[in-house]
Structure formats: structure tokens, C-alpha cells
């Protein structure tokens, strides 16, 4: 009984992680759409600049998140 609830808890935790990753995934998708139809705020910003910002955001956020995950994974080796 106890183990069952433990398993359930673990699987729910996994779902929580997956869910948050999914949310992030949606976020990443809307980055990917680019700004072809977006006329308003960025009308005066050329696509090349928008792409450069996008790249920079990916680079900064990606490296930061990757290092954070690497840091937490690294410590798993240290019992």
C-alpha cells in the first residue's frame, strides 16, 4: 500500500516535470514562429535584428539553463 502510493507519487512528480517542460516547449514554439505576421510593435525592426535577438535569447537562456541542469546533475555523482 505504502509502496503503491510512493510509486504514484514518483510518477506524478514525473508528470509535473513533463508538464512544466511542455509549458516551456510551447514557449519555445512561439519563439520559433518568428514575426512574419507581427506588424505592430516590431514593424520598424528588420527581420534580421529580430532573428539576432531570438538567437541571443536562445543562447543566453539555453546556456544558463543547461549549466543549471548540468550543475544539478553533476552533484548526483557525489553521493
Amino acid at each position: 500500500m505504502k509502496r503503491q502510493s510512493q510509486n504514484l507519487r514518483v510518477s506524478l512528480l514525473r508528470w509535473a516535470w513533463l508538464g512544466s517542460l511542455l509549458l516551456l516547449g510551447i514557449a519555445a514554439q512561439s519563439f520559433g514562429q518568428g514575426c512574419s505576421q507581427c506588424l505592430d510593435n516590431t514593424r520598424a525592426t528588420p527581420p534580421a535584428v529580430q532573428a539576432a535577438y531570438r538567437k541571443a535569447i536562445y543562447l543566453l537562456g539555453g546556456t544558463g539553463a543547461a549549466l543549471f541542469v548540468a550543475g544539478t546533475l553533476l552533484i548526483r555523482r557525489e553521493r
Partner: protein
Amino acid sequence: MHLTQAIVTGQSFWHLPVDASRHGPALDAHLLLNLWIALSLLALAHLILLAGLAFRRRASRPVHTLLLEYIPLAALTLLFAFLAARAQQLWAAQRYTGASPAAMQVEVTGMQFAWYFRYPGADAAFGETRPSLVAPGEGNPLGLDQTDRHSGDDLVTSQLVLPAGREVDLALRSQDVIHGFAVPEMRLKQNAVPGQTAHIHFTPTQPGSYAILCTQLCGLGHYRMQATMQVLPPAEFDAWLQAQEAAASKRGQP
């Protein structure tokens, strides 16, 4: 009708100012929904907190993680997802698309510590501006290049006058530092960043005069960097525009 609705939704309870733009009511509804939800969750959480403290008999430790943690969490997830989705709809409706081609064009320029508004005039095109020509003392705060064929009929004012019921496309610019263009009654805010033009569009609905505030710290005069937005009935607006243009052309050819 308006009053009762305001009481029901709590506009005055939350100190919201008058709502005078077309996209405003939807925004207000969503904002008030959020505020009421936040207030009730706040009350609920504190009730649980106090109730948990108030019980005099110690209960055995709650074990049902599923019930206590994950079910409320799932409910909150749904709630936040709903709010986020609704907010995205409104945001998309306002920002993902541009103004209609028929929208009135006005250019807004922020500088330490004033706002200037430029109407394109009869040719519907703005003349060139050059920073080197800027001379507020000589009546050319924007650095309008008079040799450009579009600049002759450009009208520069220090008050934003708009017709009610017509969509406006504002092009926000800044001459020096970042300024924030905000009109609380229009539920509108966008920073004017030097070196780039930001467009926002909206439709004022109620005639009246409203405050334009600077909402981005821009220097020692930040607190007095204000202007007035005057929304007029369409007929009055046309009369105002003609009068201004006549005055301007008289000034142009002495």
C-alpha cells in the same frame, strides 16, 4: 447601466480610472476577474492557515499527498492555464496584428521632459527628422527637415488631440533616453526606446481629456513629464485640425 456594471465588477472598489478605449472593457473584465480570484485565493489560504492553527486538538499528520498537494495543484494549474490563455487572446488581439490601413497616424516623440505629437498633414506622410536640426528654442523640437517634401504640412503639437471612435496608430519614438508612454484611461502603455520605433494602436471611445504619463524613469524631471490627451467628437476634431493647419501654414509663409 454603466454604473451598475461598474459596481458589480468592482471598478470603484479597485480604484480603476474611467475606461475610455475600445479594447479597455475586455482588459478590465480580465483584470477584475484576476483581482477577485487573487483576493479569494488570498482569503482562502489565510483561512486554511488560521484554521489549521486554531484547532486545539492535534490531529495525526495528513498523509494523503495526492489529496492535499496534487489535487489543489491540478486545480490551480487549470486556473492559471485558463487565465494565461485568456490573457494571450487579448494580448494577441491587441499586439500580434497591426493597425488597419485606415487608422489615423500620429507620431509621438518623448524627450527629457516633454512629449511632442506629430500629425502627418494632408499628404499622410511624415517628413524626415534629423537630430542635428533639433532646436526647441526655434520651434523645431523634433528636428524636422524643412527641405523634405513631406515635412511642409507636418503638424507638431504638445497636446495629443484625437477623434473619438477612430482607430489611431501611434508611432512611439524617443530622442534621448527610454520613456514610458502611458494613458491609464486608455489602458495603454508602451516604452519609447531611442533608436527604434514602436507602434501601438487603439481606439478612444469617450470624449474627454486624459493624462499621458511617463512611466519609465527618465531623469530628474520624470515626475513632470506629462501631456494631455484630448479626445473630441469627430466633427470637433476636424474643426480643430483645420484650424491648426491654417495656423501652421500662416506661420510657414509670413
